């Protein structure tokens, strides 16, 4: 039972990171119908920025905040400069541009920082926290906490601010939004900025666990895809739940199902996704779009 609880908590911690990245994917997808394959690399690059600032001697939380700000601006600029020219191109052309962005970011990061793994500090104490018989890693709990704060921030932003409302409107019905005076292009850019910000949080939280290297987000992005798919690509809340579920399932399956062990963990997670998709194509929380003739 204790092992179970421990696995669940560490599953929630990684799940929270998947959830953040999945949320970033869903935000961009909802607004633009684009799956941003470069989302993981954007997060990775932001994490390197944080590393540079920490190396330069900035206090952790200052570097953290500065990284988020830079990530936001970076995401915004990427949308305006790189994505905008293909706004009206076929969807697959946009996908290819995202893939181009992915390899550029990956390659440039490798060029600047080399492909050697680097340790990344955690802001939380090293000492494990004991609750009853169960021992939790402080970083795990901290990561869950930070993820929750980010999600709460986004929820409040989208729910209660006029800008958030305008962004939701722009994603839902661009034409009507324009007729309300909403500048849809800028809403998309802000969406990319926020997605980059959320991704940066995920990167900084996961780096102490997987270590920092240019390919560190590849695996995580895949789990984020899985989470978003599971939750339904049209539902931000679904993406979060999907992320947590994937994290927990992955951990439990790896621990309890012998023949799977760690080797087929990924395969099992993916199999679950495919099954969910086939049974409920729009994901657990997604909505089905009725097409009118």
């Amino acid at each position, binding site marked *: 039972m204790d092992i179970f609880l421990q696995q669940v908590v560490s599953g929630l911690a990684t799940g929270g990171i998947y959830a953040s990245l999945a949320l970033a994917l869903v935000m961009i997808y909802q607004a633009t119908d684009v*799956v941003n394959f470069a989302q993981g690399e954007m997060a990775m690059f932001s994490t390197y920025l944080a590393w540079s600032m920490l190396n330069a001697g900035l206090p952790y939380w200052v570097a953290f905040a500065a990284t988020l700000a830079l990530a936001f601006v970076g995401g915004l600029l990427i949308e305006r400069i790189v994505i905008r020219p293909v706004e009206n191109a076929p969807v697959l052309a946009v996908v290819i541009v995202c893939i181009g962005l992915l390899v550029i970011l990956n390659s440039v990061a490798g060029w600047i920082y080399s492909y050697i793994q680097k340790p990344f500090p955690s802001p939380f104490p090293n000492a494990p926290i004991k609750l009853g018989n169960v021992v939790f890693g402080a970083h795990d709990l901290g990561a869950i906490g930070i993820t929750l704060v980010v999600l709460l921030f986004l929820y409040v932003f989208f729910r209660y601010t006029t800008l958030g409302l305008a962004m939701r409107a722009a994603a839902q019905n661009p034409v009507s939004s324009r007729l309300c005076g909403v500048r849809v292009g800028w809403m998309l850019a802000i969406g990319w900025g926020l997605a980059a910000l959320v991704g940066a949080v995920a990167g900084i939280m996961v780096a102490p666990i997987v270590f920092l290297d240019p390919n560190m987000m590849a695996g995580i992005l895949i789990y984020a895809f899985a989470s978003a798919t599971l939750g339904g690509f049209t539902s931000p809340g679904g993406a979060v739940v999907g992320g947590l579920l994937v994290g927990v399932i992955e951990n439990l399956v790896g621990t309890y199902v012998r023949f799977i062990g760690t080797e087929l963990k990924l395969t099992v997670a993916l199999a679950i996704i*495919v099954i969910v998709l086939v049974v409920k194509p729009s994901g657990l929380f997604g909505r089905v779009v009725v097409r009118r003739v």
Partner: protein
Amino acid sequence: MSAPSRPLALTVLLVLLAVTALLPFVLSNFRLFQFTQVFIYAIALLGLNMLTGYNGQISLGHGAFYALGAYTAAVMMDRWNVPFLLTVPAAGVLCLGAGFLFGIPALRLEGLYLALATFSLALAVPQILKYFEHWTGGSQGLVLTKPDAPLGLRLTPDQWLYFVSLAVLVFLMIVAWNLLRGRTGRALVAIRDHPIAAEAMGVNSALYKSLAFGVSAGYTGVAGALSAGAIAFVAPDAFNVFLSITFLVGIVIGGLASISGAILGALFIQFVPNWAQDISKAAPWAIYGVFLIVFMYTMPRGIAGTAQALWGRLARADVRSSPAKGGLL
């Protein structure tokens, strides 16, 4: 295409074919191998293009069928000493079946969801290959002997593989052309353009979509089998996600819904990474990425699509000069 351009196109084709037939006798072995790889990629891209370009089903998982084809050939050669040439059609048939079966659940998925489901398939492949170590040799992979040319043909194995790949490519191109210009091709495009209207016209879209998946996977499987022979080695990590993404890059850059686009795309994915390496040793992939983005800015419909548009503009200039009839209401 209008009638007078047909003999012209045929001539161009024949000249191209003659040149490709002569290449093995002038090129170095390494270059030859690269061109063999281009043909192999072209076959895979042709298959993917039928599915994604013509039928509108986006697959990010064709690396899986490529792997299945490669391992089918490798295991047959390694375990049962089956001649290479027999393993190629076997891999094709096996992948056709596998693709058709995968196509059935895929019917429920559309666009992005299909892309992601196929993506997970591609992701799982290396792990699965490693898991069935007994057959696949695990992460070590299987080392094969390069198939020799049959007795009587005085060709090196590289030259032989070049010609085999070329012949298979030409054959499969003709089959694709036949399929796509007739009843089947119209149905496939109709489903892509307007699925609802296609159904209302009596097109069984479930059947056609699964068939498209099957044929597409079959093509890719054949390509995989050929690659196993050409490289004489298979290992799980060669079939990672990036392979599937590369295929998608190939068809989009080459041009969706175009047979010649498959070859152009194959040239791109084979040679452009090398060029990028020549330009910058430090960050070759950054250069490659810039290439991708610039290509999409300038030719969002791919090379073949852009060429077609240019051709169309010329043709339309012709039509415009003769005033349109008033009979159009």
